[in-house]
């Protein structure tokens, strides 16, 4: 107890020093190494600034919100695009416009606009996107060759046709060992199909658009792959996620992002794969994921914070950060410099930028549980799709974030 209160007092004193506190989650050891080297580069260039990295290993958003609520947030921290709306609705983050305008070397127009928009509200920028990832199609070239298919599926018809051809009972025991594609009952995997079908989750005014023919068709198509037994879901083959199903060769295709590439190279070395754009529906579409560096409004070190923030998201810092390819740069110039636009694998991520959308929902976080439950009801209980969509809308209506 005594030690605890001492630590508490000590942390209060420390806050008054000129140390910039920086917090993030860390999804892999390689990300940790990258953060260390990035901060090392910053320290070399600006030895007069002290930065203290404070890792938040789990329950990240909960912890950051608690720290913001108790006025003890670090000066710089990550925010996921997915949860950004619930931060932007309160007056807790520092608008960065004045710093961006003052800092002539920063060049805000260099960013792809949709990633910046994810953290912008009423013209104020509350976070600088550090990188992005997006859903693309990974396909197993050996399985494709064995089925006599040369190219990845280009549209919904081909996706279905190829999946049917690739679904096989390889050892002849009457059970299917190899599925065409692996899907999962989750809204993020469904949304690219909805966007491809010209649908959306909510319209420009924020009204829900789940109960529309576009959304319904996309869901019926997506679920149909599973219903027709040409797709599997991870729990059906006792695995944790879709990537594992693909890596262990139980499915010929998977929808995943750039984060899957290192895993394929380290863990599933015997899988020969290629990357492709998601198949086209009525239009090309996919969803992109981005994470920002943001800063709290309550901050005694605003100038110092901008120095760090602008380095991390500046041309130099972003190049260090994205040079290993675990995430794609959000700056056009960095993408060009690293030559990712022509890279055999990364070009599909970079090329997706043209039609990729950031998926954000302006409803209380409970919307996610509601959609998740509905997806599970459809996949596990064969619930009626039009009725579920209507129910989802009704359940979510009252959760809309007031402006």
């Amino acid at each position, binding site marked *: 107890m005594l030690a605890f209160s001492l630590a508490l007092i000590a942390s209060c004193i420390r806050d008054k020093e000129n140390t910039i506190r920086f917090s993030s989650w860390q999804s892999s050891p390689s990300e940790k190494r990258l953060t260390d080297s990035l901060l090392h580069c910053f320290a070399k260039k600006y030895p007069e600034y002290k930065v203290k990295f404070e890792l938040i290993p789990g329950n990240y958003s909960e912890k950051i919100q608690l720290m913001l609520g108790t006025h003890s947030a670090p000066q710089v921290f990550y925010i996921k695009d997915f949860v950004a709306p*619930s931060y932007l609705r*309160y007056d807790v983050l520092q608008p960065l416009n004045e710093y961006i305008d003052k800092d002539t070397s920063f060049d805000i127009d260099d960013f792809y606009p949709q990633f910046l928009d994810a953290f912008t509200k009423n013209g104020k920028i509350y976070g600088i996107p550090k990188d992005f990832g997006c859903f693309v199609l990974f396909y197993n070239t050996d399985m494709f060759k064995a089925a006599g298919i040369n190219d990845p599926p280009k549209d919904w018809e081909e996706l279905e046709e190829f999946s049917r051809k690739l679904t096989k009972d390889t050892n002849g025991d009457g059970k299917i060992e190899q599925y065409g594609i692996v899907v999962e009952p989750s809204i993020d995997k469904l949304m690219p199909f909805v966007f491809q079908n010209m649908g959306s989750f909510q319209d420009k005014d924020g009204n829900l658009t789940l109960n529309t023919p576009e959304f319904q068709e996309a869901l019926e198509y997506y679920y149909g792959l599973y219903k027709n037994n040409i797709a599997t879901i991870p729990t059906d083959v006792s695995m944790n996620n879709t990537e594992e199903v693909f890596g262990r060769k139980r499915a010929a295709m998977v929808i995943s992002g750039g984060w899957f590439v290192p895993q394929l190279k380290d863990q599933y070395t015997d899988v020969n794969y290629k990357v492709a754009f998601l198949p086209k529906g009525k239009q090309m579409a996919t969803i992109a994921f981005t994470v920002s560096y943001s800063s709290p409004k309550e901050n005694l070190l605003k100038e110092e914070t901008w120095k760090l923030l602008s380095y991390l998201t500046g041309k130099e810092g972003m190049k260090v950060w994205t040079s290993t390819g675990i995430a794609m740069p959000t700056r056009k110039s960095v993408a060009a410099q690293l030559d990712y636009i022509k890279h055999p694998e990364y070009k599909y991520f970079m090329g997706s930028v043209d039609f990729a959308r950031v998926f954000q929902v302006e409803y209380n976080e409970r919307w996610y549980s509601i959609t998740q*439950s509905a997806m599970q009801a459809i996949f*596990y209980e064969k619930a009626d799709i039009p009725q579920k969509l209507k129910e989802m809308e009704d359940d979510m209506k009252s959760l809309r974030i007031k402006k």
Partner: protein
Amino acid sequence: MKRNSSTKKEQQFWAYTFLFFPLMLLAIFVFIPILFSLVISFFDWELMASQQNFLGINNFIEIFGDKIFYKAMLNTVLYTIGVVPIQTMLALFLAFVMNQKIRGRTFFRTAFYIPAVTSSVVTSIIFVAIYSKEGLLNSILGIFGFAANDWLTNPHTALISIMMLNIWTTSGYFMVSFLAGLQNIPNSLYEAAKLEGATKRQQFWHITVPMVRPVTYFVVVMSLIGCFQVFDQVFVMSDGGPNNATTTMSYYVYQNAFRYFRLGYGAATAIVLAGIIMIVTVIQKKYFPPNPY
């Protein structure tokens, strides 16, 4: 006389001196938070908002129109009805057997108690593997010709699966309570019964069961409270899914407060839960007193 009272005062002084520290800890980490949660249950409490909106009893009104809350309540009641009787009977039975002079008694006692001292997260993760579609349970059932079932994503079996896990982990724990109770039963009772020609079964029902009644009361209260609060297994194994089939009341409290960041609403659900537990305990105390003799 005078000397006596001063000693008493002195005793009290020292009693409180020693109690001060634990009381302070309890106050900071238990009593104040409980009172505070009562306060915020009347607000639309949001962590990052600069001002909190007073809602009066609106949170409580919302609870009674909340479909998921009813589902969570139903799940919790089903869970309790399923777990408490089986757990109590199993624990008593195990204790009765373990109290006999059988070979390897120490080994079995340890074996049954191990799940109770193992972290619930660890046992949950092990059971996720056991329950999975290509897991141990399905391979055993497959020998007898049953079709494979994904226990945790099938809405009809998910809750039962978690119930079975909980029975397994806590029976051993309560077995120890019963063992202590059994060892307090005077041997003369059994000897007298034997002389009268009572069988082992008769001894169990007419001596053991009534004599351990105070322990049974303790076990039932503790496991009732434990069941109403079940959280960790749900958190690790199913996240309340599929389709809210395993959302229990305490998990719903957590979801509201820390997933949806509706701390006021979460606190209100927690208070309703506390009220229900209190009512159940009072009823139990009234109709099943610990010591009727």
